[in-house]
Structures are given as C-alpha cells and as structure tokens.
C-alpha cells in the first residue's frame, strides 16, 4: 500500500545523516592541510592519534553513558585518581608516608594497571548505584564525584606528583608497535569492542532501549537499574584505563591530571552525533568526534593561531560541527 517507505531512499538519507560528522572532519583536514602542508606529515598524524587516544578511550565509555541519557562529569578526576593508584603501586608506596613492598621497591606494571582499573571501575559502579538506587540525577552524582575523587587524588599524592616508573610501565603510554603508538592501539581496541557490544549484544541493545524510553524498558522486563549501574561501571573502567595510560605516557601521575577531560569527552560524543536525549548514536561517531577535536587543537597550533583566538575558534567550530550534523539529519526527515 502507498503509505509504506521506499526503504533504499530512506536508508540513503539516514546514511548521509550518520556520515555528517565524517564529512565535517574531512573538510577540516583539507583546510588545515592546504594552509600548512606539514599538517599531513605522518609524524603529525600519529601525534594527533596519540593525543586523542586517551580521552578517546574515555569518550567511548561516555557514549554508553549518554546513550542512556546519563552524563559523567567525574571522568577527569577519575583519571587523576586512578593514575595515582597505579603510580603508588608501581613505586611500591608513597615517599615517606607509605611503604607497600617489603624491600621498598615497586610492583609490576600489571599490578599497577590492575589498581588503576579497579579504582576506576569501583568509583564508577558506586556512582551508578547512586544514580540507579537513590535516583539522584547523574549530573549531580558525577558533579559530586568530580570533587570527591579530586579530593582523594590530592590526598593520595599529598598534592604532589608521583613520578618515575620502569620501562615496561612506560611502554603502554610511550611505546610503539611499528609506526603506531601503543595508546592508539588501545583506543582502537576499546572502540572496536564497544562497537560489537552496542550493536550485537542484548546488553548493548538494552542500553539503547533504556535511553529511548526508560519506563517502557522497565515494562518490557529490562533491568533498568542493572543496565545503569553497569554503564557507569564501564565508564569507570575506561577512566581507570585512561588514567593508567596517561600516567605511563607522562611517566608521572598527579592530582591535577585530566582536568577538563569530561567536557572534551562529552564534546567528542555529541559531535559524533550521539544525542544527549539518549537512545540514538554510537561509538563510530564518537571516534570521529574525538579525531575532530584532536585535529582542531593540533591544526590551530600548527597554524600558529594566537592562544586567545584559538579558544574562540575551537568553541565556534565545535558548535558548527554539531549544527551541521543536526542540519543534515533534519534534511533527511
């Protein structure tokens, strides 16, 4: 009957809608490349990739959170806290305040990484429970979490940095496999796994269902609280991993690390076309979004744009990117 959809055509437009962020990214790359050819040097491209990889990992976790209509402002603080946890383990204690290993030497990177990831995940799960069970809005819970975990990070390192780790530890942030920096590979792996989970598993689809209509999700027998807690645990995990990689990259962990990562990560997710209303979007877009922010920051520096002007441009371009995305999507209705 007439009132049915010509699927192919509809799908074409839907596709275009999904591609909007990519188009914008390419445009940006072309502009920078034409203004400064050195921008395209492999070295620079890998720099960009390495630079985005850490908050990229977090942005992947943030995608889940935003898909269920949540938000997490605590990730930056979590990066700092978990990074310090890893550092304490790797150093075998805190100078003059805490000795963990008998001979005062540090522990292996495995234990350090584990510490970071456990710390992050635990913190995330706790926040998830507050959101799910106390029904406190995620914005508030994680705003609180942000200051709480900063506070904890400060008390762990007593305000100062903890630095100097062994080679094995450092490899995860500074190592290379062929021409590719390790953090980039970690980011890629995390993104790939997240993609499979979101598109191919019941949990992933439950995430979309909860984001699209929590009440209906509950009525159709989905364990909404469970999904919520899991999702916040998941971004906690990503933050912990990010914290470990960052500490390894900087060969040092400090309480002020990761400041502002929350906003960068959220920006990446939204630029990638995931809606803050939840229910629509995905990891693919987030990767594009992360790259876009990375390209932006790198390109403006490469072009010697003055710092003040840079801030203005970054703000404008981010808004433009999202506006473009929404414009395309509207056209395809």
């Amino acid at each position: 009957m007439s009132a049915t959809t010509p699927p192919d055509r509809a799908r074409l437009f839907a596709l275009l809608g999904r591609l909007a962020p990519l188009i914008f990214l390419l445009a940006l790359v072309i502009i920078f490349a034409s203004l400064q050819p050195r921008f395209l040097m492999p070295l620079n491209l890998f720099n960009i990739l390495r630079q985005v990889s850490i908050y990229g990992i977090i942005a992947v976790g943030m995608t889940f959170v935003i898909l269920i209509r949540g938000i997490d402002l605590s990730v930056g603080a979590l990066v700092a806290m978990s990074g310090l946890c890893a550092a304490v383990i790797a150093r075998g204690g805190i100078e003059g305040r805490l000795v963990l290993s008998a001979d005062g030497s540090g522990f292996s990177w495995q234990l350090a990484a584990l510490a970071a990831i456990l710390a992050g995940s635990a913190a995330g799960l706790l926040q998830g429970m507050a959101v799910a069970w106390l029904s406190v809005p995620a914005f508030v819970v994680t705003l609180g979490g942000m200051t709480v975990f900063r506070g904890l990070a400060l008390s762990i390192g007593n305000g100062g940095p903890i630095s100097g780790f062994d080679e094995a530890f450092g490899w995860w942030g500074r190592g290379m496999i062929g021409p590719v920096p390790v953090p980039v590979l970690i980011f890629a792996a995390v993104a790939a796994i997240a993609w499979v989970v979101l598109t191919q598993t019941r949990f992933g689809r439950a995430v979309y269902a909860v984001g699209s209509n929590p009440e209906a999700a509950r009525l159709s027998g989905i364990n909404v609280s469970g999904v919520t807690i899991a999702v916040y645990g998941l971004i906690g995990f990503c933050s912990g991993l990010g914290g470990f990689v960052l500490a390894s990259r900087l060969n040092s962990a400090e309480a002020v690390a990761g400041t502002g990562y929350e906003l960068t990560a959220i920006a990446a997710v939204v630029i990638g076309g995931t809606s803050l209303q939840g229910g629509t979007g995905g990891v693919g877009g987030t990767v594009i979004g992360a790259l876009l922010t990375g390209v932006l920051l790198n390109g403006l520096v490469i072009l010697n744009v003055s710092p003040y002007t840079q801030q203005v441009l970054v703000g404008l371009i981010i808004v433009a990117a999202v506006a473009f995305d929404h414009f395309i999507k509207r056209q395809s209705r």
Partner: protein
Amino acid sequence: MTSASSLGGVAQAGAGPDNGPAHEFFVPAPHEPAGSAPAPAFGPVILEAEGLVRRFFGVTVLDGVSLSLAAGEVRALLGENGAGKSTMINLLSGVHQPDGGQLRLDGSPVRFARPLDADHAGISVIRQELSLFPDLSVAEAIFAGHLPLNRFGLVDWPRMRRAASAALSQLAPDIDINAPVASLSIARQQMVEIARALTRKARVVIMDEPTASLSPNEVAHLGRIIADLSREGVAVLYVSHRLDEIRAFCQTYTVLRDGKAVAGGRVADTDIPALIRAMAGREIAAAQKAPPAPVADQGTGEPLLQIRHLASPQGLRGGQRVKDVSFALRQGEILGLAGIVGAGRTETARMIFGLDPVGQGEIRLFGQPVRFASPAAAIAAGIGYVPEDRKGLSLLPGRSVHENFALTGAVPARFGRNDRRAEARLLAGFWQKLGIRAASPGAAITTLSGGNQQKVILARWIALKPKLLIIDEPTRGIDVGAKEDVHALIREIAASGVAVLLISSDLPEVMSLSHRIITLREGVTSSDQPAAGITAEALMTHMTRHA
C-alpha cells in the same frame, strides 16, 4: 442500523480476507460470544486475583477486587473512567504492588515485585498509554527485552526481522519494520504494541483499551486474533469502552465502579443497557441517539473553512500521505472525517493547523486563502486543535490540572499577571459539566485516569472559544457516560456557531454527531455527503473499497 450490530459483526470479519467486500463487515452479530467456536468450556484457572486493594495518597482506588482468568477465557473488564481498570492491570502485571489481597498463579500465591516477574510468569500487557521506544526500529521495539540470539550469543537480526514482519502481517502489513517507531501514527503504534504482546507467547494477555484509536477493520483483525488466542488456550483480559466490542469478543465480564467489583458473569446473559447501568450505577441515555442540531446557515453564504486539493509534501519516510483532499465546512456545522488508519486524517488536520507544511492545494478561512506557519498563527486566526496523541502532544506532565487547562491562555492576563481566579471559575464550569474526576484542580494531571485527562484537554480548547475546532479522536478512552457528556458539549458548541471538524475512528460516533460526513481513502476524499440516512456499510465502502 444499531451500533451493536455494526461492530458486533466485526468478529465475523475475521473469517473474511483483510479488505474483502464491505458487506462482510456487517453481518449482524450472533448473540453468543464470538470467536469461540465450541461453547466456552474454559481450561484451568491461570491467574487469580483475590480482594486486591490499592491506595494512592492513602486514597483507596481499588477496594477488594477479585477476578479470575482461565485458559481460553476472554474476560471483559469494564468501568467508567477512573473506576480502577488500569490500576487493576498494573497490579496484575507487577507495575504496582497491592496494599492488600493477593494474586495466585496456577493456584499458588505469587508476588510480582517488578514487571519482569509478571513477564516471566507469562503475563503480557498492552498498555493504555503507549509505551514504545521512539528511536528504535519497529522490529526491535517489538522484541525489546527479549531479542533472539544466534548461536554466538549475539543478537540475531535477520531472525528478529522475519518474526516481526510475521507478527505484523495480520494486523498492519504496510508498516515498515525498519522505520523508527516515532514515525508511526498513534494507531500504528498501537498495532505495534499489540504485535509486541502477541510475540511473547504469553499464557495471559491483558489489553487495556487496545482499540481506542483503531478503525473498524483493524478492530476486526484484533477480534480474530483474540479468538485465535482463546482457541489456543490463552487467557485474555480485555478493557474497552466500546461495549459492542465487549459483546463481540468476550465471554465473561467484570464491572468495576469506584474501585469495587459491582457486577460480573457471562456476557451472553446480559445486554448493553444492563452493563451501562452497572458501570454508572444510574440510568444513562442510550448511546448515540440524539439527532444533530440544525446548522445555522446550511448551504448559504461563504463556508468558514474551504479546502481544495490539499496534498502533503513528498516525504521520505512513508511517502506522501495526503494526496488530494477537498471539502467545505460551514459555521455551526459538524463535519465528520472518517477513514481507516493511515488514511491521512491526522495529517490533513495537522496541515490546516500549521503543524505540518502544506504540499499543494489551498486552504480558505472565511474566503481568505491562508497557510499557517505555526499553531500560534492558526490559533490567532480562531482555530483550535485537539490532537489524538494525548500523551505526546497535549499533556504537561508534572503540572497541575489547572495549568494544563489554562495552557492556551483562554483567560487574558490582567496587568500582565495571570488571572488565576477567573481561570479557576472557568475550569470549575467544565469540571462539573464533564464530570471530571480528580483530587483537585491542583492535582498533577498525570494522576488522573486516561479518560479524565482527555476531558481536561477538551476543556482547554473549548474554553478558548475557537471559530473552528478540529477534534482528532475526541472520545479516545472515554467511558460511555462521559462520552454522552462530550457529545452533548460538541453539539452545544456547534449550535453556538462553532464549526467542528470531527475526526473519529468510531463510526457510530461520526454518524450520530455529524451533519455531513466525508471519507478519506489513502489520502484522497472518496466521498462527501449529508449524514442523514447514511449507512455504516456505505461509509466503509468509501473508506476501503478501491474504486
């Protein structure tokens, strides 16, 4: 012809092809419960409620209600708006927990702490307020929470799609299972909701006003489906305010009044007036008999609203829904707009009201060509619109009844301040006239029963005193008694010179209220004639038969 027979026959239509020749719809109903070929010897009792009590704000909404559902039984749950039907269902399906009484499943006591528990117990529910996933595809929405898995433990998309089309094939084969649910009309969403409940292979299926916005032949399909379920030994609890459906589909019934079960038994042993009496606890003027008031300026002078060859723009999803609609509407006239689901009625209304862009064609108001860029403009020009999607387009959740009523600003502000006292006075009038049941004007609108919400929304628009009022499914979810109040109100405003464009899937309603009736078929006006002496058969032909 009587409305009873007009829909009573619906069950029979089950036998016929989906859109076979029209007369098949109107074989008078046999007076034994439809669908159950062998006389109803029910199987063992599956679900049993005993003395259920539920309070809100310490107010008793359900007061010791008992009912049982046996395998193969189709039981009607009847009652006025606010009687407690949906609440009862919420208790049976674990949405709320009873404050007293108990549930028994297969004879042994159970407690449903969450909807999930009821789901595991094989109870599936079609909710009164649609609860779908706007962003998900139709196919996924149908299986949400129970997605089929392949042997790798991953979601089996192909299988899911196949099953989804199968589930919809009977009811609405034209729905694109890959389209997002949000792009479907209320009616279609209701069908998806039905399909969802059916795919659960449940032992108990509960339907809370599933036909509220369905038109006769969808109702017919549903009738056949229910008959099949009952034959397969599924227990069905069926809620509807359309009593002819009750007679056609159900074998037993329970009537609720003010939270108490006041009557029950075999449908065959009672009749509609008796049921109405039981629900209302008083005598109600038999439904839909009053003749329409004469129109002020019949035939003479410039029509108030004139639509010529109206068409919606070519859309991407679902193509062009309105193709060629023309009609004229005069002051004081009630123009019935009939059509099956997807015919283009709502879209026509939306275009007139400036909600959707107009493709081609012209709209003349008082002879002047108009195209409204926004509802605000349409309202300024004296048009009002009561949409069919109450939850999505009308209610202000979390706001009081008063604010929901005052939204359109019927009462002008005094010195820039809202004149709450005058608003309250106005509301009180409608409250009494429509018999609105709610704690107080200060109560949150969402705590009202579906029907009472609808009354408040109607009041909101009538209070605005529009010159033209478009009403899409005016009595959706409203009980028989209240329906009379609403009909009387519509006649009254028409008599006062307001032009009314009445969109309704309830044919008897259209026929009894309208002066003229036009029918839409796939976006084209297929007939336009005075209501006097028109038959439902004739209407159905124009609505469905391909010329």
